[in-house]
């Protein structure tokens, strides 16, 4: 008898006394606003697409001004207005424009790092989960050691000793991304490798390479993806921290973290200098978290159903 799942405390251990098993059809919330994934999901996706597009095409967009030239007819540090939604900073730069350009570094570093994580960490995870043996043990130990280390410190160390370039940043931040994605991919691969369809492929005589590529990889990608989105958020936060401390790249424009830091002396009279980029960053992080969350739950349910 299925155990009734009741919210609120006190399970009814009735030994299956009352059959309140939920009807499996009720699991799919298709009647929710915005469909199965929810309205928030699509709003988040929309925001992410918008900000990414804006960052990439900033030069061409009419409503994004020049981040590095002072605006003449406005007072220093003046607050948000219709024309300049985030106001103007102490150098008379358009804060909104700077925020959009700032997204460039943050997003680029974020996604690039995760890409490295996917390729290196994901690749190794696949191999470890599929071939097992001493390769796996070694890799797992390595990943655990990397994860055991306080990440910010490692990133700080690398950037401090090796200088702040985009490459170094990505390197530093991927110290976290690679082992984390390794873990996730390995776990997913382990789950997949036991499945019947893999055994079936083996029996037909498929090579390891073919199995990995055709059978396992497509099934492992979804959980990797949802985790990857969450990881992007973490990397953006990390890059922001480094930027805040003055350790990130500042060309073409300072990233979000640096922009926030620059406004911190004007919090009294011109808080918008910090709050503008902060708000943009916040929205992006919320969107990434939400999308990653929803996707991971979706794939978990499918896993369970299988």
């Amino acid at each position, binding site marked *: *008898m299925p155990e*009734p799942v*009741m*919210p*609120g*405390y*006190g399970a*009814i*251990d*009735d*030994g*299956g*006394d*009352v*059959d*309140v098993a*939920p*009807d499996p059809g*009720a699991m799919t919330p298709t009647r929710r606003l915005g469909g199965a994934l929810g309205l928030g999901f699509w709003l988040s996706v929309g925001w992410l697409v918008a900000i990414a597009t804006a960052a990439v095409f900033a030069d061409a967009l009419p409503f994004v001004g020049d981040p590095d030239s002072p605006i003449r007819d406005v007072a220093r540090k003046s607050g948000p207005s219709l024309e300049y939604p985030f106001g103007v900073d102490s150098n008379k730069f358009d804060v909104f424009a700077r925020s959009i350009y700032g997204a460039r570094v943050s997003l680029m570093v974020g996604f690039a790092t995760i890409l490295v994580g996917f390729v290196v960490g994901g690749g190794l995870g696949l191999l470890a989960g599929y071939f097992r043996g001493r390769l796996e043990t070694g890799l797992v130990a390595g990943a655990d050691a990397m994860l055991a280390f306080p990440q910010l410190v490692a990133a700080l160390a690398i950037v401090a000793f090796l200088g702040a370039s985009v490459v170094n940043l990505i390197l530093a931040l991927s110290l976290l991304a690679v082992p984390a994605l390794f873990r996730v991919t390995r776990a997913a691969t382990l789950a997949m490798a036991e499945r019947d369809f893999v055994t079936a492929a083996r029996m037909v005589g498929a090579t390891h390479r073919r199995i990995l590529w055709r059978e396992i990889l497509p099934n492992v990608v979804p959980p990797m993806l949802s985790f990857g989105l969450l990881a992007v958020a973490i990397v953006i936060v990390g890059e922001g921290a480094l930027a805040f401390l003055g350790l990130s790249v500042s060309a073409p424009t300072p990233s979000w973290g640096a922009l926030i830091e620059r406004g911190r002396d004007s919090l009294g009279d011109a808080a918008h200098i910090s709050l503008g980029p902060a708000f943009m960053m916040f929205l992006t992080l919320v969107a990434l978290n939400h999308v990653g969350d929803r996707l991971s739950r979706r794939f978990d349910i499918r896993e369970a159903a299988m």
Partner: protein
Amino acid sequence: MTGSAQPTLAGVDDHFPIGDPSAPVVEADDLVTWLRTPRGPARAVDGISLRIAAGQTLGVVGESGSGKTMLSRSVMGLLPRRIVERLDGTVRYRGVEVPRHDETALRRLWGREMAMVFQNPLTSLNPVVPIGRQISESLAHHYDMGRDERREHALELLRSVGLPEAEHRLGSFPHELSGGMRQRVVIAIALACGPGLLIADEPTTALDVTVQRQILDLLDQQRRERSMAMMLITHDLAVVAGRADEVAVVYAGQVVERAPAAELFASPRHPYTRALLDSIPSPVQPSHARLDAIAGRPPDLVAPPDGCRFAPRCAYVTDACRVAVPELVEAQGSVAGVGGRPTREVRCIHPVASSEGLS
């Protein structure tokens, strides 16, 4: 009993009133408990009444899915509020009405006047608290006892439930005890404040066969010594034989037969009771004889059939059975009992006449 309204608990301060000592310990009338499920309300308890007098045991028997555990919890009022769709009926404890919708008032009763022994002794005890503390906790809460006094009391209780080396066990953790010992501890916890009603919900199902009897004997002994009313819930008729004074057979949230135990076993009137009795393996049967299981599936509490709820599985069903739910009426062989209530009742429009019955 005067004709004025029954006193209720609401106005009572600390000490529960003795109420009417001549009234049965617990009286439940027309209990209805419907639970919220995704498919609709499940009628776990659909109009059940019962009475238990001091020192008496009422056996409640039914299959899994019959609603018997929900019944016990309904009597006590121990239901998680969130899943209850409908709650009707009255419960009177020693003549005083129990405020079933007021959890704060109910808490004054729980542990002190009404106690419950749960099915699984392994999970019924908090794994990180020593058992001595788990016993004296209700003492601490309901009474103003000093720490030494509580310890003494807990020790006494452990001895009275037959736990060996009680002194050393006070500080033990549940995982250090065997299943039978744990169940004894659970019983000790229930008895700590000297309740008037003890509900034992499948107390032996999770135990070894050898231990089962000991536990049942223990419960019997405690009931006698303390003159408690006891409600013994089980799916196993054999557990109830010889230990209950009266038996109520429950099916699909309703009582389908109620009789003094001996009479129930000798001459069951309801086809379901008959089927239950027939399905008990008997030592006199030749080995490899087929066991008579009851055909069909457990009842659907969300959408019960029109008419008699046992009809889909009844060997003697007729068309008339499917028309309306039979009432619980006085059965053949019943005499006038306490308070004018019949001693035997059955919910069937053609009850089985005798144990030979129709073939």
